[in-house]
């Protein structure tokens, strides 16, 4: 007996209906009555609210990657997940190196983006930037990643010039029980996580984790040989969260990591032939941190908190060994004044002690130093018309040892003509303070035989902060519960940007503040949930940069600043629930070309072509607690170039990656 297609379809539909009706195995009320009080106190109430809603009440360009989007993205690291954020340019330099920026100025040492993990800054003061390889957060434990494009200096402080990324991990009360996760693929040599969450007493929760990430090497652009950039990272840590009475809560958390990155560094050396020797070496990274926070919250709009953390990092590479100790203390107080003033103010103190071991290629003099930074901020959100118009005024004052006092004020206005429309505008000032390298560093850029004459870029103690005045407007609209739109436009006016002055071709080069320029652009995010099983999101960003340099002699980074950002970027994602236990996620991206990603790219005439990339993954939950993921990244081409590093790293192509991963929650 043969079945026709129609028969099969009918049988299928009948089975489907049967399966669906027999589905929910709900714990009966009777079962629950047998639980004792301490068990009842463990049950999590989840408020499922699936709405296509952007943040509507924030007068800034904010994008949030929530846990669902993060898990559905197929990303195996924070940088990969950040590719979904409009306005950010995420470019992979090699297996372990990333260039990530917001609204322009990308580079290995991109310095205008501040990044924090649970309130701890991971911005490195030695060169102003973020070492992404050591920020190996357990993605399953991330609650959300908040990304603010544009200045956030008033609240967050210096260096939040073009944006701030806040990675917020879940409270340990939300990660109770065990998680074991293991993955493997053609590029992902090993993805392994073990986490256990427990409750110490009725008011104290804890979790502990260990994590390991091994990645294989890519290939060099030039000759398709092994790029020798395989690397591994091991980390572990804990988080405790507790409550005291109804109004006080506290957190104590700490992490420890150690990584080993193979890399080929192209360096200038002291002995003939001097030039660009390619040295294979293993960079070693190590760090640990401890953070404590106490919050007293008497109401939604009245709270006090104190946070203290200590952070230690060390990084030993062929061209430099650097160590940083940071101690940071932050106080914050929020309260209502009258009916219309919502005030937040705070005080901060940061102590940094560094230590470098110099090489011929890179040196810092003196090798050791300590710096103190003191800051205070005040922000007042004024309700001008209840539920309609809000005005926010604020400023940060900071004293640092390089440039003295810095003030970073902003003014923001939010207008909600109707519940589902909001318009905002802002003017703000932000500065990027000098790094240790710009003040005291020396980087060898050429050695000319026979003497030999060594040409270097020297730090200048007079190097000043880079300054930005940013003008932004935004519009958000939520016409239907399943549709939302978020548009942000910006015009940024920069002055005193980093450039390089040089008297003659063989004279020393100094960091100088001679460049200025402007950028403008827009970011658009559209979310649409056409059906209960389908969630889609479109992100588009455009940026134009034009720089100008007063430099009379020397070389100016005008070309590379203008040429290192893609003019257009598109990200298009679909999260499809095929069945309740079978999800399909698709993600396509377009990144425009980079005409001059760095000086090295210009010298070697390498243009990073525009590229389409496509990621897809399927998640299957065969039984409760087990989730199997098969994911592919960069599926459209076998490999492509995303960025050419300024120095040290040879152009490396990013390959297609396919991996399988199993998550077991118990």
């Amino acid at each position: 007996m043969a079945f026709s297609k129609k028969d099969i379809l009918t049988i299928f539909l009948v089975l489907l209906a049967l399966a669906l009706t027999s589905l929910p195995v709900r714990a009966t009320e009777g079962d629950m009555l047998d639980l004792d009080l301490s068990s009842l106190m463990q049950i999590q109430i989840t408020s499922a609210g699936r709405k296509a809603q952007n943040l509507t009440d924030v007068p800034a360009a904010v994008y949030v990657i929530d846990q669902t989007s993060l898990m559905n993205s197929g990303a195996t690291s924070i940088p990969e997940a950040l590719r979904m954020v409009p306005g950010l340019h995420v470019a992979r330099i090699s297996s372990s190196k990333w260039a990530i920026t917001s609204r322009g100025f990308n580079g290995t040492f991109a310095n205008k983006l501040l990044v924090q993990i649970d309130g701890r800054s991971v911005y490195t003061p030695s060169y102003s930037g973020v070492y992404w390889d050591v920020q190996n957060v357990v993605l399953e434990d991330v609650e959300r990643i908040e990304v603010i494009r544009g200045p956030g200096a008033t609240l967050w402080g210096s260096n939040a010039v073009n944006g701030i990324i806040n990675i917020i991990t879940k409270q340990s009360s939300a990660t109770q029980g065990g998680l074991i996760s293991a993955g493997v693929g053609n590029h992902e040599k090993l993805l392994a996580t073990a986490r256990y969450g427990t409750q110490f007493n009725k008011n104290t929760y804890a979790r502990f984790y260990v994590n390991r990430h091994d990645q294989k090497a890519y290939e060099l652009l030039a000759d398709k040989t092994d790029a020798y950039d395989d690397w591994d990272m091991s980390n572990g840590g804990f988080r405790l969260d507790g409550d005291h009475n109804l109004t006080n809560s506290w957190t104590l958390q700490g992490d420890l990591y150690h990584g080993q990155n193979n890399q080929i560094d192209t360096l200038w050396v002291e002995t003939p032939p001097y030039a660009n020797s390619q040295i294979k070496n293993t960079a070693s990274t190590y760090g640990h941190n401890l953070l404590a926070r106490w919050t007293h919250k008497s109401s939604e709009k009245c709270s006090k908190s104190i946070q203290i953390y200590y952070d230690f990092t060390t990084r030993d590479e062929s061209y430099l060994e650097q160590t940083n100790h940071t101690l940071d203390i932050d106080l914050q107080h929020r309260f209502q004044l009258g009916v219309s003033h919502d005030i937040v103010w705070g005080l901060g103190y940061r102590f940094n002690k560094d230590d470098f071991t110099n090489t011929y290629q890179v040196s810092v003099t003196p090798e050791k130093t300590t710096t103190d930074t003191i800051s205070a901020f005040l922000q007042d959100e004024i309700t001008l018309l209840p539920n309609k118009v809000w005005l926010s005024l604020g400023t940060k004052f900071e004293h640092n040892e390089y440039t003295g006092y810095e003030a970073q004020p902003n003014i923001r206005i939010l207008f909600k003509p109707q519940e589902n429309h909001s318009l905002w505008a802002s003017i703000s000032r932000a500065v990027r303070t000098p790094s240790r390298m710009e003040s005291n560093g020396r980087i060898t850029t050429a050695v000319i035989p026979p003497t030999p004459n060594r040409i270097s870029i020297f730090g200048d103690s007079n190097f000043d902060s880079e300054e930005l005045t940013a003008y932004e407007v935004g519009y958000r609209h939520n016409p239907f519960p399943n549709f939302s739109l978020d548009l942000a436009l910006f015009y940024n006016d920069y002055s005193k940007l980093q450039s390089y002055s040089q008297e003659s071709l063989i004279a020393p080069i100094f960091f100088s503040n001679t460049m200025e320029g402007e950028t403008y652009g827009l970011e658009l995010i559209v979310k649409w949930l056409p059906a209960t099983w389908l969630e889609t999101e479109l992100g588009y960003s455009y940026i134009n940069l034009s720089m100008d340099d007063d430099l009379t002699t020397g070389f100016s980074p005008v070309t590379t600043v203008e040429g290192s950002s893609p003019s257009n970027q598109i990200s298009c994602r679909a999260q499809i629930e095929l069945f309740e236990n079978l999800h399909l996620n698709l993600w396509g991206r377009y990144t425009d070309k980079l005409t001059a990603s760095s000086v090295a790219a210009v010298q070697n005439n390498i243009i990073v072509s525009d590229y389409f990339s496509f990621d897809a993954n399927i998640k299957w939950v065969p039984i409760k607690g087990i989730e199997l993921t098969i994911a592919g990244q960069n599926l459209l081409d076998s490999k492509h170039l995303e960025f050419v590093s300024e120095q040290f790293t040879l152009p490396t192509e990013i390959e297609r990656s396919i991996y399988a991963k199993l998550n077991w929650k118990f």
Partner: protein
Amino acid sequence: MLRRIFYILLIISVLNCNPPLSAAHDPSEYNIKAAYLYNFAKFIHWPDSAFNSAKAPLVIGVLGTNYFNGSLQPLTAKKVRNRVIEIKYFKSLAEIQGCHLLYISKSVKQNHNLILKKLSTQPILTVGGYKDFVKIGGIIQFITRRDRLRFSINLAVANQNNIHIDAQLLSLAAEVVGDKE
């Protein structure tokens, strides 16, 4: 052929459904509250005078809109210290009679003061879920903390109403107010 395989795969995946991906099958807040009320009853001692006889039922009442739906019904199959449990739904304050544990619904919170004034000094354990319930004279208030349902207790009012709360219940409270230091 491919299509057939696709269907078979689909059917397998559906039959295997046991989905932790969504939170749709989590117990509702009121199921948990019902279980809490039953547990409260176990840890509360009412004076003998609160019962007509040694066999008289323990009465759990709901005042105002009943958000429990059917969640309280299974309690009637349970016993607390040899007393059967009886559930009563009261629409108004005047109807309250012979009740030992009263859940005051948020629908009547505007009459809060009036209700508590009438109930004060009566051996009734008042339970509520709205803001400041214990601060303004209720005995046990449900609170949500860290996505979990917890409770706080006003011991002073319990004493005043001649209700004895077991130390174990007090120790599990998120906060005890009105405790004599």
